[in-house]
């Protein structure tokens, strides 16, 4: 994992001290809320429906055990004993006190963490593949590139006041586990004739205007990655709309001028930026890369797994994925217990995951955009011990990628922007499909719920998506089918009139029945929907 150098630490420490002074002035009445609001937002502190909410950055979703323990400590000391892992691989705390926030940030900084650039019209936390460094299918480890982008984008003076917020995802495999093309800039590391470089997709996003990012360049040599990125941002910063926040994202610019014209302008800018010498010298990139060297894998990690315990066997089949290193596996920890809250974990559970990672996963954890946790490097001989330890903490749900593994935004239970509650709907659907055999029979089915059009719950990318709306003061839920955030990316389409909370649960169940009747061998729900279209589903769902 990357370790802060003196510059990194000094920058973060200085920002905490600066914010401490700003909080003191606000509490003393020397600045107004209007003056203070942009300052607290720059430090990730929102005022939400019930209280202040702090969003802590987890760069490319990667944590060590010490950092994870700190997140548990913060949940206990400064919040109400839990945290919420988000779809951008961050963590949010819902009950932070303003007067205690500087002390909290001081403690975070002591483990090389912060909440900077988790809000505002700047470059947000860089997200990545949760299996980075462990996946057999990656052409390179994307984390050094994500770290390079983190350093480049932190306090970037030219890009601190963009027309709107800006989100990156960096992956390095054909299988897209990070919803890469639904980001403002999606970067896929690729090899061409044995040389490492990157494909650039620009102008993707969800929100009220979902768009799939078009390919802007099929190959940017690795040594030009920052220059090309800078050129992409410069064109946006120059021409992105600042007069209308709903049209200010880069996806609107790329859509309005067209991908070809945007590409032309980027190439023109790139020719200029390349003369500025902003790409790091090879030695600096190698310095960063060394932090991500593979751990010291053991030669005798393999084991013949005893599958006699059926619960363990199901967990192995559902939540454990192949590792690039013989004898090792990738373990997914579901934060989606039936009747739980998607992405929530108690302080005790966070501590437990940290302990397990320290003992069994080379001290490493990852947060996924699907609001789960990954132990990236677990020896096969330790899998049963890991499962047992997780089960003791109610963290062994074997439902990865099944219908109860629901992405859900906080919705109207916590969020001041939301129009409807997301969590109770997710809980009712999970409860309806509680039987794990039934879920596994349905297979991969990605269900995602947002409580408003901002789409933090990624409903556009759900095989089944649910959007909560306010219909004359009453919560109403629209269904979308056919979305995907993976390499077969697509945006879901609304199937018809909306439902109340119970009605949408019934509708989802009816959709799964149509799927079961119509599916062909090997087809997922999404495949069947794409083959037969929406009509049979509508007929069943809206039948009188």
């Amino acid at each position, binding site marked *: 994992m990357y370790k802060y150098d003196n510059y990194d630490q000094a920058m973060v420490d200085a920002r905490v001290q600066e914010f401490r002074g700003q909080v003191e002035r606000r*509490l003393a009445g020397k600045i107004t809320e209007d003056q203070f609001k942009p300052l607290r937002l720059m430090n990730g502190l929102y005022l939400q429906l019930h209280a202040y909410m702090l969003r802590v950055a987890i760069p490319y979703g990667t944590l060590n055990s010490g950092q994870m323990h700190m997140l548990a400590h913060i949940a206990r000391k400064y919040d109400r004993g839990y945290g919420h892992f988000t779809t951008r691989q961050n963590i949010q705390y819902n009950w*932070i*006190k303003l007067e205690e926030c500087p002390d909290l940030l001081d403690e975070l900084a002591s483990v090389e963490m912060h909440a900077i650039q988790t809000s505002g019209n700047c470059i947000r936390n860089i997200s990545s593949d949760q299996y980075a460094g462990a996946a057999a299918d990656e052409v390179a480890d994307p984390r050094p590139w994500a770290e390079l982008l983190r350093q480049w984008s932190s306090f970037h003076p030219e890009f601190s006041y963009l027309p709107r917020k800006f989100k990156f995802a960096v992956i390095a495999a054909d299988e897209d586990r990070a919803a890469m093309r639904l980001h403002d800039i999606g970067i896929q590391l690729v090899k061409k004739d044995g040389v490492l470089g990157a494909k650039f997709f620009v102008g993707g996003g969800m929100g009220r205007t979902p768009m799939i990012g078009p390919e802007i360049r099929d190959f940017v040599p690795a040594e030009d990655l920052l220059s090309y990125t800078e050129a992409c941002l410069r064109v946006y910063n120059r021409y992105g709309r600042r007069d209308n926040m709903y049209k200010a994202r880069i996806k609107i610019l790329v859509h309005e001028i067209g991908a070809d014209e945007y590409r032309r302008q980027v190439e023109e800018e790139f020719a200029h930026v390349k003369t500025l010498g902003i790409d790091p010298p090879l030695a600096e990139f190698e310095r960063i890369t060394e932090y991500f060297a593979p751990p010291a894998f053991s030669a005798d990690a393999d084991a013949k797994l005893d599958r006699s315990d059926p619960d363990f066997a199901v967990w192995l089949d559902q939540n454990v994925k192949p590792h690039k290193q013989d004898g090792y596996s990738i373990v997914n920890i579901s934060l989606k217990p039936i009747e739980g809250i998607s992405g929530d974990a108690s302080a005790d559970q966070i501590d437990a995951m940290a302990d397990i990672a320290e003992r069994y996963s080379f001290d490493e954890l990852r947060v996924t955009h699907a609001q789960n946790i990954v132990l990236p490097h677990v020896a096969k001989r330790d899998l049963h011990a890991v499962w047992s330890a997780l089960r003791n903490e109610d963290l062994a749900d074997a439902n990865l990628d099944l219908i109860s593994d629901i992405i859900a935004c906080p919705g109207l239970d916590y969020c001041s922007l939301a129009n409807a*509650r997301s969590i109770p709907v997710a809980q009712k659907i999970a409860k309806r499909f509680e039987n794990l055999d039934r879920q596994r029979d349905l297979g991969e089915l990605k269900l995602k719920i947002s409580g408003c059009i901002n789409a933090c719950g990624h409903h556009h990318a759900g095989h089944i998506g649910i959007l909560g709306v306010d219909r004359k003061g009453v919560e109403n839920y629209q269904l979308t089918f056919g979305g995907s955030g993976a390499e077969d990316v697509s945006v879901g389409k609304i199937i018809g009139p909306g439902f109340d909370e119970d009605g949408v649960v019934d509708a989802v169940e009816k959709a799964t029945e149509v799927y079961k009747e119509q599916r062909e061998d090997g087809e997922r729900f999404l495949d069947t929907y794409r083959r037969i279209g929406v009509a049979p589903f509508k007929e069943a769902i809206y039948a009188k």
Partner: protein
Amino acid sequence: MKLLTGNDLKSGLVIWWTGDGWSPRVEGAVDAGDQGESILAVEEAARRVNASYIVDAEGGMPVHIKERVRAAGPTVRADLAVNPDIVIEKA
């Protein structure tokens, strides 16, 4: 009727105007009538409330679902509820 709500500056918690101060419980809230804006101006200036606004209410309870959830607390965490008896759904 009109209720006044906002957040406590230090803790950030939701509070409601009681006529002579602020309470975390909506049951103690009073009708501010047409005095809402002037009351909030004084209270904001004294930093006794933050991000305040006026809410339409009937029978002492906010009309809109968002403010009813604010008054109740998260509906999915009974242990964190301010008043779990508040009816969220509109009849």
